């Protein structure tokens, strides 16, 4: 299960650490694969382009019309797929590591459900019709996270309580969403369901740019904070004994995880199972004990881009349907395996 690690130490600058060749290779491979899928995604459409022409347009060469098609029409969608997958993968890895539970993902513990109820409420009740789906999704996700954190607080939080409270909040939000859908007009319900399954179809730069800016801040912050995960994985008491400010560390890491998933959901809706599955796939690929952040993020990007490509090429469905169809058996497999091992996974 655990892959080899290389320990290194430089004399000057005095840098030392542990390198995992397999993890590095997995990150590079997945990053490359994500880029290939990103380019491939931009070749598909009413105006077919070759990969060569996409690449030429990317570096601002080639036909002017090609550049317009690539930059104005197709890149927002492809980039959104890449970024949403990246954000969901990293967020899932954070949630699973913080709670020490492979089933903890934003779509299981109520964050996505909170975004959903806000967006569907906006569509059906017309609340905040001016602010748009994106802002509502963002607000719903953050509000759900705040409610979960506050309800789970008893002189500090524990990962277990966050999951239990989160599942409760998730069910409440899902019921509310179902109620709203039931009283919606047909065209409203259609619009709402289109968003609920996770959809990259109508993404433009107005959805992609805020996501890009948010990730430009959140990803580096997450990577800086991630040092605490090494001790938090050992349990609260051990982590505290090793000098980790447990409550502060967990709060900031959860904040980063919620931010990642909230911006991703705001852009494309709750694309099912990515945040749950990507970290577990990455963990097994890299042969490491806990979900690796960057590799999970790259896996998420590959899954979303691949599913979106498949959705458009083969079946013409929204991306969330494909990830759901592929993710459900994966979840069952994970559950079966966790039960056999007699632990959380």
């Amino acid at each position, binding site marked *: 299960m655990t892959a080899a690690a290389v320990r290194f130490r430089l004399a000057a600058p*005095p*840098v*030392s*650490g*542990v390198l995992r060749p397999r993890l590095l290779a997995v990150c590079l491979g997945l990053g490359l694969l994500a880029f290939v899928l990103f380019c491939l995604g931009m070749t598909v459409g009413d105006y077919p382009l070759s990969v060569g022409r996409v690449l030429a347009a990317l570096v601002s060469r080639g036909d002017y019309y090609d550049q317009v098609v690539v930059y104005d029409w197709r890149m927002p969608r492809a980039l959104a797929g890449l970024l949403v997958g990246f954000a969901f993968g990293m967020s899932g890895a954070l949630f699973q590591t913080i709670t020490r539970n492979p089933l903890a993902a934003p779509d299981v513990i109520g964050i996505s459900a909170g975004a959903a109820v806000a967006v569907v409420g906006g569509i059906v009740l017309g609340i905040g019709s001016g602010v748009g789906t994106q802002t509502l999704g963002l607000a719903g996700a953050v509000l759900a996270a705040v409610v979960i954190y506050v309800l789970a607080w008893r002189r500090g939080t524990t990962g277990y309580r966050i999951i239990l409270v989160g599942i409760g909040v998730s069910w409440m939000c899902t019921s509310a969403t179902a109620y709203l859908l039931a009283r919606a007009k047909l065209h409203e319900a259609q619009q709402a369901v289109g968003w609920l399954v996770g959809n990259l179809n109508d993404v433009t730069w107005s959805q992609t740019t805020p996501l890009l800016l948010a990730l430009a801040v959140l990803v580096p912050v997450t990577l800086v904070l991630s040092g605490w995960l*090494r*001790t938090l994985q050992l349990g609260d*008491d051990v982590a505290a*004994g090793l000098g980790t*400010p447990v409550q502060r560390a967990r709060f900031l890491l959860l904040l980063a995880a919620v931010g990642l998933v909230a911006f991703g959901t705001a852009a494309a809706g709750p694309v099912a199972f990515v945040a749950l599955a990507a970290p577990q796939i990455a963990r097994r690929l890299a042969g490491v004990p806990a979900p690796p952040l960057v590799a999970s993020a790259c896996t998420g990007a590959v899954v979303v881009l691949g599913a979106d490509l498949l959705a458009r090429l083969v079946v013409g469905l929204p991306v969330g349907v494909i990830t759901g169809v592929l993710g459900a058996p994966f979840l069952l497999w994970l559950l079966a395996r966790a039960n056999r091992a007699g632990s959380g996974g």
Partner: protein
Amino acid sequence: MTVELRAAGLRLAYGDRVVVPDLSLLVPPGRISVIVGANACGKSTLLRALARLLAPRSGQVLLDGRSVHALPTRAVARELGLLPQAPVAPDGLTVLDLVTRGRSPHQSWWRQWSSADEQAVTSALRATDLADLADRPVDELSGGQRQRAWLAMAIAQQTPVLLLDEPTTFLDLAHQIDVLDLVVDLNRDEDRTIVMVLHDLNQACRYADHVIAMKSGEIVAQGGPAEVVTPATVEDVFDLTCQVTTDPVSGTPLVIPIGRHHSTESVAR
């Protein structure tokens, strides 16, 4: 490298339930102290407070005269180590990786494997006899090996004070003795101050320099095993009549409990 650990006027509570009303304690530096007492007497709570895991309602825990709650937690972690009861490692985490994480209070993000880290980890693995198992996942080890791995993590932290909460729980007798012998090595060879909670009174007598007997959140008696572990104290602390004789191996007190059954004629009830 001895450091003085002291509790002054500690009041400890969970919510409205006061577990320790007012407790003061000086942990003898460079010695092994063992806290004993009946279930729910507050001994683990006291240990958690000493390890700054539980903030006192009033009073303070002082490390060389400075309050552990006022000091940066990483600075405390370089002086005071803790092994909680029955810790759980993530699946697939290797022994080497676990022990290396014991170094985290000494590390920064660019310095994760200094020569001091390597030396501390190597010597912790050697002390716990785990060098050959360094690359094995912790969850695949036997109970005794696993507890040694966690101890190795705490050892690699290289703190002058080490707090152990029931380090022998869930181990068979041979592995219990194994772990306790290791604790004595740490104390004698490296001059570390040890405070541990133990359930077994006879082991406490054999391995402690200083026994602290607790009842209802208060220290009833403390001192050398022979002073503290007497039939009167045991009756008071555990509500159990017993005879105390001498351990033929170590010469320390040996507690023989008297229950309601199986006593011979000569035992006065």
